[in-house]
């Protein structure tokens, strides 16, 4: 069989993930400390696991509504109202999905027609581009820079807009940079969005991991609710990555369109994960705050450590990543990451896998124990010393 001829060209055109390549390189190297992990090092708080186990014991093993359990959607609506004064009808404006990833894919497929352009500030999470391509859209990247603290600048956005521009993706706090956008920054963006009649996909998965300044949901800005899809989930704030549970909240017509795809592809998110998510929203704040506090403490340690060794690191105000510049070393991001792995046994992610403007930077996750971070920083320090 000649699979290359059989497999759809659209899939063949999706480039291999840069992270995947690096993953293969890392496997096989012993005694590594990884700052390359994009998920919490905490285990899901026990009360959440326990609630899910209890639901299994009670026999909750069936399908739920396509939208998800109503009780969960009600809590999600309550959460969005209490945090951002956003009102969504849990009946038809909230959709529970298998992680934010699924929700994003649904939205892209529901929105994009062949050739529609999606504006993507970068560096950014690796799946927006392939998902857009798979949905038939075209990605137009908008670069951000360390000088601007990796915020999306209104002027740069304006320049990227064409008459095919349809969707803007915002993900703040940002993976990989840890950048946040405050209200003024977002207000500027919202004007351009309004003028150009864009739809905004606001990926707020790291919203609850905002350490400085308030977290502003894009939908809560004047006039933006009607043109914004809010995405959030439980993976990062509640350490629930493996549960694969997230949601989208948006006006009824687009949620309905997304639900149409969801009902045929996924049917519903797993009920045990939905029960766990419900417990997280109702009773999870205490544990969430503990983890938040620990991340914030580690954030300060890693940023200071990186700056001390001479790698300029702007202050990440959210998520759990530091994104220092390695330009001083004269190495490319990939060379730096590869040599750091081979010579010092520390895993970081080369910044260029998140987009061209990530070249010259590395992503260091501080979702790792303080001992690991301290040891990794010590190893990196002696590695960098050799280079500069």
């Amino acid at each position: 069989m000649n699979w290359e001829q059989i497999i759809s060209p659209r899939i063949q055109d999706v480039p291999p993930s840069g992270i995947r390549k690096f993953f293969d390189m890392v496997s096989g190297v012993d005694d590594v400390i990884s700052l390359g992990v994009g998920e919490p090092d905490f285990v899901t708080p026990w009360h959440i696991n326990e609630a899910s186990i209890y639901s299994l014991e009670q026999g909750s093993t069936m399908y739920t509504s396509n939208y998800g359990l109503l009780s969960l959607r009600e809590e999600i609506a309550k959460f969005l109202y209490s945090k951002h004064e956003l009102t969504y009808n849990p009946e038809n404006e909230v959709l529970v999905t298998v992680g934010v990833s699924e929700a994003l894919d649904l939205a892209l497929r529901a929105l994009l027609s062949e050739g529609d352009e999606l504006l993507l500030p970068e560096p950014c999470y690796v799946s927006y581009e392939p998902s857009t391509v798979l949905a038939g859209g075209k990605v137009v990247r908008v670069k951000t820079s360390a000088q601007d603290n990796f915020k999306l600048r209104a002027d740069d956005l304006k320049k990227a807009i064409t008459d095919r521009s349809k969707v803007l993706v915002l993900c703040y706090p940002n993976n990989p940079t840890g950048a946040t956008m405050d209200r003024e920054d977002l207000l500027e963006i919202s004007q351009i969005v309004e003028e150009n009649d864009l739809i905004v996909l606001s990926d707020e998965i790291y919203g609850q991991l905002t350490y400085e300044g308030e977290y502003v949901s894009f939908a809560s800005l004047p006039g933006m609710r009607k043109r914004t899809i809010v995405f959030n989930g439980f993976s990062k704030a509640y350490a629930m990555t493996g549960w694969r549970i997230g949601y989208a909240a948006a006006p009824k017509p687009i949620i309905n369109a997304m639900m149409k795809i969801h009902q045929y592809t996924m049917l519903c998110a797993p009920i045990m994960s939905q029960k766990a998510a419900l417990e997280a929203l109702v009773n999870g704040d205490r544990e969430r705050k503990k983890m938040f506090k620990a991340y914030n403490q580690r954030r300060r340690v890693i940023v200071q450590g990186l700056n001390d060794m001479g790698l300029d690191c702007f202050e990440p105000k959210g998520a759990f990543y530091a994104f220092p510049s390695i330009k001083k070393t004269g190495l490319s991001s990939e060379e730096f990451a590869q040599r750091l792995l081979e010579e010092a046994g520390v895993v970081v992610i080369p910044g260029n896998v998140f987009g061209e403007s990530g070249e010259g930077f590395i992503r260091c996750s501080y979702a790792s124990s303080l001992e690991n971070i301290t040891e990794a920083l010590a190893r990196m320090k002696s590695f960098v010393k050799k280079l500069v």
Partner: protein
Amino acid sequence: MNDDILELLESNSRLSPDKISTMLDIPQEKVEKVIKVLEEENVIVKYCTLIDWDKTERDIVYALIDVKVTPERGVGFDAVAKRIYKFSEVSSVFLMSGGYDLSVKIEGRSMREVALFVAEKLATIEHVQSTATHFILKTYKKDGIIFKKDKKLDERLVVSP
């Protein structure tokens, strides 16, 4: 701020003032000063290490003794508690609500030693009405830390987006 420093030290008493200063974004001199005051005020009583003795060769027996006491006029339970906690065999004493008054934890080399201590020293103290001895068979969790066989390995993928 004091609580944050105490929380960090409670979870790891070896954290240096330098590190605490970074973690909490407080100047190092300030951290040192606060710790000194907390030590002087006996809020920080002692810096200890949590040890899983079951993993060592050493044989120690622990027992929790429920002690019923007739309180003394004027001094309540404190005087009896004092007579009890002065024994070096006693590792902790708590005043309890409920079915008995003092919970006493005792450490000994054998069950016999502990039992003899209770019979000869503890039960004979004036105002002690009765005792009930419960030997500790296994420690699952202590001071918020789960005692496991091995350190749990990080099961996460080494690299993820």
